């Protein structure tokens, strides 16, 4: 038996054949390991090793594909294709990576939070308020998710007359951030812009919710033309998407509460507003009545004062008149003479008690 004929190839052909075989055998694989020797070259290319207790494999990706910050020591899962380079070096070409395990998720979250915080993406002064009564709302969620159903039910219970456009997207998994980004861009490019864009998703594990910590998604939320409201997970869950949103809701139900008022409360408030008008009118009428009474009293006072003045004046005149009474003068011993004072004329002299007829005998100057 002879030895099987071996294939003779050029180096380049061998590399091409190996890559073809690898591509056929592993079109896409997920590999989990710990990051080591992480570095970014020329601001574009990312290199790191993925290792476990006994092995290590080199990884390569472009910086724009790196949507989650990583550093040495973090446990991650990469979605990659194995490849033999032209220099004979075996490596994984990574398309997507995500932190694996609670510690790494937390670490990645903190790294990105610090980076975006430094850029001011979460700054309070960037936050816009939502309209009090939105008429057109865009919702980004999975229509099959319980969180979406809760949100819609509560919005319908609380308010009406709102046009709600829903973008059905994945809210977990590797494709979720890109789908949500496309939906955000779709709503932000509409001629008839919605008043608010709401992103909701119910509770889940840290890994399930990790899509909401994707850097590009967080940036898209922060730069949305339309104000955003994000309600993801339970009350204790905090995502970077929440932090970048204009308004953060603790849960999808809470997002519905923040989005629209409760119609029963609204009706009560409207009724209260109108009911306060009657007492207000009564108060005003009472004020008018009191003002009128005060004016009348003032008028009576003035009239009374004038009357007193007139009475006083009349009394004074009367006193003067009394002083001028001729009887009073006669009583003081004076006499009143009537008739022309010409020598030989008869005149009448009146005293207090008597009348005297007398003849003028002599008239001389004093």
């Amino acid at each position: 038996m002879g030895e099987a004929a071996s294939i003779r190839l050029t180096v380049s052909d061998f590399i091409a054949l190996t890559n073809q075989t690898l591509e056929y055998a592993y079109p896409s694989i997920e590999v989990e390991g710990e990051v080591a020797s992480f570095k970014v070259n020329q601001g574009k290319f990312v290199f790191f090793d993925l290792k476990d207790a006994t092995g290590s494999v080199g990884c390569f990706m472009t910086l724009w594909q790196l949507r989650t910050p990583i550093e040495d020591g973090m446990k991650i899962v990469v979605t990659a294709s194995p490849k033999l380079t032209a220099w004979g070096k075996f490596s994984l070409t990574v398309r997507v990576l995500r932190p694996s395990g609670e510690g790494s998720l937390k670490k990645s979250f903190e790294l990105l939070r610090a980076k975006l915080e430094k850029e001011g993406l979460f700054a309070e002064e960037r936050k816009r308020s939502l309209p009090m009564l939105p008429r057109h709302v865009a919702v980004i969620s999975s229509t099959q998710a319980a969180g979406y159903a809760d949100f819609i039910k509560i919005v319908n219970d609380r308010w009406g007359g709102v046009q709600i456009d829903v973008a059905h997207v994945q809210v977990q998994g590797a494709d979720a951030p890109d789908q949500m980004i496309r939906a955000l861009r779709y709503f932000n490019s509409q001629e008839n812009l919605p008043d608010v864009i709401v992103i909701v998703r119910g509770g889940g594990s840290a890994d399930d919710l990790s899509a909401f910590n994707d850097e590009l998604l967080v940036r898209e939320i922060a730069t949305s033309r339309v104000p955003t409201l994000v309600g993801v997970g339970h009350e204790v869950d905090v995502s970077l998407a929440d932090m970048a949103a204009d308004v953060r809701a603790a849960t999808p139900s809470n997002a519905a509460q923040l989005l629209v008022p409760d119609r029963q409360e609204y009706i009560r408030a409207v009724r209260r507003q109108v009911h306060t008008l009657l007492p207000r009118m009564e108060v005003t009428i009472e004020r008018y009545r009191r003002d009128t009474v005060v004016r009348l009293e003032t008028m009576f006072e003035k009239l009374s004062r004038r009357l007193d003045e007139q009475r006083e004046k009349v009394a004074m005149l009367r006193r003067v008149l009394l002083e001028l009474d001729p009887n009073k003068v006669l009583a003081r011993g004076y006499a009143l003479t009537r008739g022309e004072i010409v020598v030989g004329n008869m005149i009448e002299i009146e005293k207090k008690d008597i009348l005297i007829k007398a003849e003028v005998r002599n008239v001389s100057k004093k």
Partner: protein
Amino acid sequence: MSVKNNLSIAEKTTQLDTLVAWFDSDEFELEKALDMFTKAEKLAAEIEQDLATMKNSIEIVKVRFSESE
């Protein structure tokens, strides 16, 4: 101020706020108060009626966001 139909709840609420504010303003006249109160009452009733009957319209956007453009 006339109360028009076919206004949104927000617009009707703004009108109601204006009517209510009139009662505290310098423009207040006792002779006009009853008329203004009647208008406010009618507006409040309309808002209540609207809120009781209005439904939301929900439409799923016919775009596949799973595919990049």
